[in-house]
């Protein structure tokens, strides 16, 4: 149990550092892929709602700590998405690589819409089509592309952890 928690904390931390640090050098069209989103959605798909929500809480806190003056908004976003993604656990299959990709795309869309509402709409900026066209779509495409690789890595980590649990 503790090992699983440590793996989650370390894994999400590494992804956060990668997302803000390394991928800034590799940004396409000015956007970076949302690695934390892939993590939350993948956990939701592989492990169910509760765990995805806890992972979302953690990921959100990382962003809050460095990039937000108000604590709690990003965890809330990720918890909502983790919760929704967790419903797909019922149809989880080891060889299914398409579902997490689609879930990531939908999650990213939802995240961007929530971000738009909280940070832009409330400021009186209403040009949604511009944000969708300029940021949301490139971000979804880039995130989905990265998730093709990242999901496989996460799945291997998950299988390894499950085996470890059985040994215990």
């Amino acid at each position, binding site marked *: 149990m503790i090992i699983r928690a440590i793996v989650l904390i370390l894994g999400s931390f590494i992804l956060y550092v990668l997302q803000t640090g390394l991928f800034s050098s590799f*940004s396409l069209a000015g956007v970076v892929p949302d690695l934390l989103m892939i993590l939350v959605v993948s956990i939701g798909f592989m492990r169910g709602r509760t765990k995805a929500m806890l992972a979302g809480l953690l990921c959100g806190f990382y962003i809050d700590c460095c990039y937000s003056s108000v604590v709690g908004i990003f965890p809330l976003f990720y918890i909502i998405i983790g919760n929704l993604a967790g419903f797909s656990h019922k149809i989880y299959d080891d060889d299914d690589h398409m579902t997490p990709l689609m879930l990531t795309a939908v999650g990213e869309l939802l995240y961007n819409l929530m971000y738009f509402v909280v940070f832009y709409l409330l400021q009186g900026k209403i040009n949604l089509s511009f944000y969708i066209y300029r*940021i949301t779509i490139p971000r979804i495409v880039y995130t989905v592309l990265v998730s093709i690789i990242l999901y496989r890595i996460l799945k291997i980590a998950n299988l390894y952890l499950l085996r470890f649990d059985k040994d215990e």
Partner: protein
Amino acid sequence: MKPKIKNKVKKKIVINPKIVFWGLTVFCIILIVVSYRFSDIFSPVKNVIGSVVAPMQKGINNFGDFIEDKVDHFSDMDDLLEENKALKAQIDDLKNTNQILNQEKYELSYYRELYELDGLYDQYKKVAAKVISKDPNSYSGEFIIDKGEKDGILTDMNVLAGNGLVGIVTQTGSNWARVRTIIDDSSKVSGMFLKTSDTCIVSGDLELIDKGYINVSQISLNAQIYDNYEVVTSYISDKYLPGILIGYVSDIGVDPTKLTQQCRLTPVVDFEHIDAVLIITQLREEYDGISEVFKSDN
């Protein structure tokens, strides 16, 4: 709600995810309200996490730069050879222009004297810093630099790149600081036209920066301004030191209320490829003391 989750984890009691969801949601909302109401309450936590993350990001960032350099190196080889030819031809041209520019430099220093900027602008003590991470949400124009309180960085210090204004420090940790750029949607800078001394408000706009512009508004109808006039930070700002170049204006027109003029501004800083910045380690409040002296001298 938190203890319930812990119970679940330890004793493997399955509790309804619905309860977990609402519990965590309420928890987050409470956090939002608390941190909004008492903004200092979380700063020690943020500081500690920031201090741990900053060195790692710095390392990873260097690695990223290294890879990017290598990739660029190969892809640019052909371009470079062609460019080299063109550049050689340009050198002669530039030699000529340089001569002219040198003459204009004298003119510039004359203008600076006129605006009492001479000396002051160069006299600001500056600290150089590297950008180590950018906002994970691709919307906003914020980034984190690798210098913090240890190096004398404080909140509200102005940040430059080259000779143009980048933004302002909004939050500091022991070895990191958060900078909000002037292109950020929430950024508003009090500016001034160098030639006419008309004041204006320079506000960031994500939509416009895509085309390379930001907004300038609240310019008096009587202001005689034309394209390519310089906008600098104004004397009336309470956070920005005066006389820092922001950019050049274009597309001047009357705003929808017909009470003021508005225009667009091309920042002098290239925000897409920003990787090193200078922080002026002097706050506006301290500066006001100095300017008093200057005014009484004249």
